[in-house]
């Protein structure tokens, strides 16, 4: 067991953090994963690598956790499905004129204030939107896998990404990132 934890503990922890955005929850999920793997070690047939096997267990734990979270936050999920957009007027024109944003991705990615603003803006997204957006846009996960794992259609995924981008763009702008001075 010690060998497993030292070989794959950090990898699984990073994997969990990038999906649940919370160190404590990520640590709990990794712990549950190792425990389940230990209990089920006889069932490991060695077809996949040990790492793939552990990652598979962790993926299930993460999915369960997120489904629970979504169920618990019914209100937020309802917001997810609300088609009315606060960014447009009835005639589908922008409510506020959009301004140009010139900046360097390299500079922004290493800017502490930008990272803080980004975390804050992400935390205000409805649960499912946030999750899908992070998996897709930050972690660069495959859309097909996201759709399968969270049981949504490709069109749903595109709608969630679209809404998340609108919200983020405006939230970041309110933090001073998004319009050129």
């Amino acid at each position: 067991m010690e060998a497993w934890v030292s070989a794959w503990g950090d990898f699984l922890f990073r994997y969990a953090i990038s999906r649940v955005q919370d160190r404590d929850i990520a640590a709990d999920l990794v712990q549950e994963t190792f425990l389940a793997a230990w209990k089920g070690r006889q069932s490991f047939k060695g077809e996949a690598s040990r790492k793939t096997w552990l990652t598979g267990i962790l993926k299930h734990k993460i999915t369960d956790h997120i489904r629970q979270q979504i169920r618990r936050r019914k209100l937020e999920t309802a917001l997810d499905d609300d088609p009315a957009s606060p960014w447009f007027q009835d005639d589908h024109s922008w409510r506020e004129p959009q301004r140009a944003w010139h900046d360097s991705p390299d500079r922004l990615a290493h800017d502490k204030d930008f990272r803080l603003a980004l975390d804050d803006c992400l935390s205000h997204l409805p649960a499912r939107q946030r999750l899908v957006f992070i998996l897709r846009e930050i972690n660069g996960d495959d859309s097909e896998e996201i759709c399968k794992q969270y049981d949504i259609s490709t069109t749903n995924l595109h709608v969630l990404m679209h809404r998340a981008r609108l919200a983020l763009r405006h939230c970041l702008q309110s933090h001073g990132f998004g319009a050129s001075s």
Partner: protein
Amino acid sequence: MNHFCQQASRLASDKLERRLSLNESLRLNIHCLICSSCRHYTAALRLLHVTLRKTHEAEPPQKLPAATRQQIIRQCKEQPE
């Protein structure tokens, strides 16, 4: 009269998710020629897209806390063989 901006914002996002059809791509590009808001929004999404991927790469490596490690090992030892 209805504006195309709301649809254009969706296409600007979809463009980062899938290949737009020729028709969609033309409509978006032509609209952006005449609408500065949509032009700026489309450019901003691309900047955000590139930046977010870079933030992932810039992430400091995270280590599984030592307390969790010990707990895992202890709990597994408590399991009956």
